[in-house]
């Protein structure tokens, strides 16, 4: 239960920091009001233009993040030193982020983790910088050295933020921590570096030219944020199209309804259990959705769409036909390769193809079987590990099936892709 404990600890720390700072600031009043107001507006704009965070968007609010971090590192304003302390920085950022998240809350999206990350990151940066600055420790530093110091502080902050984000995701979903952390860190050179650089540059520019620097500097990141929004939207429609393509075999009567979606969701869960990184999980998802496309080329459908029981040569032919279609989808050569090689013996397969093969066979075996179906199916897969099914994937599948409440005969409909806590087993004939 350490998982829950870290979750609770992080949330408590953020709440204490935020509430304490608000209280202290309320009692002592606000220093440098114009600066506080300008940064508050900037962070609010950043929050309000935030894309709806999808599973594949690491830093969904670069502008808000950069604005709040740079407020934590502001040491001067148009040539005069500033005197706001840690509590004021945290109070302003927490209050504005909370206000900016209202629309998201109204849409029923989870914003708590986002706020926790924001408050902790800003608190960290401000604690590292403001007390020392207000004591005049950096007064003797030359210009370039000071700029590099700010940058270094921000890099440190972003790295800590990545750890916090991974810990939160780990405790929310129960997925292994290491791959989550790796995915978070992989995003640091991209959007993370832009956030660091913009935060540092804004703090410096405010010190040189005053608050005019903020609107000028926020333009590139605002554009980035709008592009991210469109990217998220087009990504969503892309997934819908792939899913529709996957359903084509179901509508054509080649495969049972919901089969592709269930194989995709379960494959993702197994991939996570095996610690695959985010990009490979995406490839896995698309390949699993389209793994039966090759059947469209068959003049007569395979009975019940069950390919796992066919002779190996025919399985491979269908896989190759499917790969040819997938190559034209723009989903990338990787996805096509997984679809093509799903019927090969497992020592020659990439990991994603092994997962698709095992999960597809499991899905076909469980279909229409009674309450003992999952057990029997897993047993049959274990016996078939002599060359068809990769043993480590079968074990991962067994873990997923039994850890995620196979005992609760969940409605498969409730298991959206990427939703790990749902029953993978179905009662007889429970088609969607």
């Amino acid at each position, binding site marked *: 239960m350490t998982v829950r404990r870290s979750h609770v600890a992080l949330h408590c720390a953020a709440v204490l920091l935020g509430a304490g700072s608000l209280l202290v600031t309320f009692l002592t009043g606000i220093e440098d009001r114009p600066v506080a107001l300008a940064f508050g507006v900037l962070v609010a704009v950043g929050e309000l233009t935030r894309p709806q965070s999808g599973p594949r968007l690491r830093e969904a609010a*670069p502008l808000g993040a950069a604005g709040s971090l740079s407020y934590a590192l502001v040491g001067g304003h148009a040539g005069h030193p500033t005197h706001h302390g840690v509590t004021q920085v945290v109070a302003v950022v927490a209050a504005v982020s909370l206000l900016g998240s209202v629309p998201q809350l109204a849409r029923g999206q989870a914003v708590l983790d986002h706020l926790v990350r924001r408050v902790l990151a800003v608190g960290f940066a401000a604690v590292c910088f403001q007390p020392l600055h207000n004591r005049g420790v950096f007064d003797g530093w*030359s*210009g*370039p050295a*000071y*700029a*590099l110091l700010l940058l270094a502080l921000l890099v440190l902050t972003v790295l800590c933020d990545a750890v916090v984000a991974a810990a939160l995701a780990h405790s929310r979903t129960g997925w292994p921590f290491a791959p989550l952390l790796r995915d978070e860190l992989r995003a640091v050179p*991209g*959007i993370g*570096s*832009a956030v660091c*650089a*913009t935060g*540092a*540059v804004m703090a*410096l*520019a405010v010190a*040189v*030219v*005053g608050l*005019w*620097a903020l609107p*000028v*500097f926020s*333009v*590139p*990141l605002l*554009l*980035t944020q709008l*592009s*991210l929004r469109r*990217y998220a939207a*087009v*990504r*969503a429609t*892309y997934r*819908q*199209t*792939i899913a*529709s*393509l996957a*359903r*084509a*075999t179901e*509508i*054509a*009567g080649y495969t049972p309804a919901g089969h592709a979606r269930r194989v995709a969701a379960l494959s993702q869960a197994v991939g996570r259990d095996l610690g695959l990184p985010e990009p490979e999980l995406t490839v896995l998802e698309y390949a699993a959705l389209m793994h039966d*496309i090759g059947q*469209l*080329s*068959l*003049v*007569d459908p395979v009975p019940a769409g069950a390919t796992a029981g066919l002779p190996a040569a025919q399985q491979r032919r269908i896989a190759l*036909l499917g790969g040819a*279609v*997938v190559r*034209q*989808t*723009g*989903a990338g050569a990787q996805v096509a390769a997984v679809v093509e090689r799903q019927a090969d013996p497992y020592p020659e397969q990439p990991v994603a193809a092994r997962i698709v093969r095992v999960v597809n066979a499991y899905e076909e075996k469980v279909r229409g079987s009674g309450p003992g179906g999952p057990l029997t199916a897993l047993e049959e897969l274990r016996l078939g590990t002599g060359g068809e099914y990769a043993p480590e994937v079968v074990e991962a599948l067994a873990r997923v099936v039994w850890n995620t409440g196979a005992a609760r005969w969940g409605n498969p409909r409730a298991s959206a892709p990427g939703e790990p806590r749902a029953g993978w087993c179905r009662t007889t004939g429970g088609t969607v």
Partner: protein
Amino acid sequence: MEGTPAWARGYAVCVALGALLCTLPSLPGARTPWWAVALLAALYAGGERIARRRFGGTLHPVLLAGAFLLAPAAAALVPLPGALFSHVERRPFLLRRVWRAAHASLAVGAAAQVHAALGGREAVAGSDVPYALLPAGAAVLVFCAALALLNGGMLALAEGLPLWRACRGLFLRSLAPLAVHGLGGLMMAVLWLSPYGPVAALLVLFPMAVSWWVFAQYHRERAAHQATIRALVQAVDIKDGYTRGHSERVGQASVLIGRELGMDESRIDMLRFAGILHDVGKLGVPTRLLRKDGPLTPQERRVIELHPEYGHEITRGISFLGEARSAILHHHERIDGKGYPYGLVGSQIPEPARVVAVADAFDAMTSTRCYSRARPVQAALEELRKCAGAQFDPRMVAALAHAIARDGWHPVVTAEEDRPAVPAQAFDDRSEVRR
């Protein structure tokens, strides 16, 4: 490529001479800050290599920062090394490199001239920001206009495009991205002269680069999405041999009709998708039936007539299709109510469906299939006119006939990926001298 018109060569040489004249005053100048020129030029040259390959952008912020920091003659030196050693895909290599260097150099020089004339350099040195925006804005306008004019001239000479249209298109396309680059350049210049020095100025490039990167990602994703829509159609092709290219052409004819009726761009996009996907429901029809030679029995015909409903069902999850789905469902309805699946009459049939019905019939008549020879375009239009009012909406038939009478019918045979124009690349090779 080899056939570069002599005029275009002469023009490139003239522009190069102009650039030389523009940079000459900096050479004897003891007051030229050579280290700043060298640093900016190196930054531009290095960044250009990375940026072109990774983000498809170009480092205009660096050029503009040079224009805001340096005297015009010195600023005109900044783009030279980067452009002279840039990667060129097509012949004539030397001439292309010289052209790139020369026109960029002239444009930067002109921008710096305007900036200095409006007192911008003092404003930058004094970090006088609200005022500094004015000369910087003027300089960006001049930079953009100079690039558009020089490139437009080259397009006019090399490709015979009308000069005014080429210039206007280039100017309008690149103004917005250049304005953003100008803001970045201004901040670079201000920080460069601040106590924090060039180190802080370099940090400005990070957010710029990331915004390009995200932009490029978005376009990649969009292209992938378009390809997926086509894959849905190609899946139909796999089952049904004779439809190759049919869906694409129906999309094209639907767009022609929509344009002729004066619909707005978003509706025309919707029509394109409706046309491309109208037969996607054939995925639900048994392959054996689709490939059957010889006449179909009434029962088999009924099964095939289910395809609009299958198509409607397959595309149920694709939210952006919107109205296009109604066209997929109703493209076999007839105006007189004798069509299927619902037998709707006249204006009960959704407009996109009436468009796609005409486009579909037109392409079916003008392309060769195993059971019928292709008819000439005029004969097909005549046939459509005969059926207008009974099977087809006369408005749509008239629109198609009108569009084809004006521009002719040039069917696409293969699915050609339409490349979205990336504004940040307004001046890359594609819009540069194409010879």
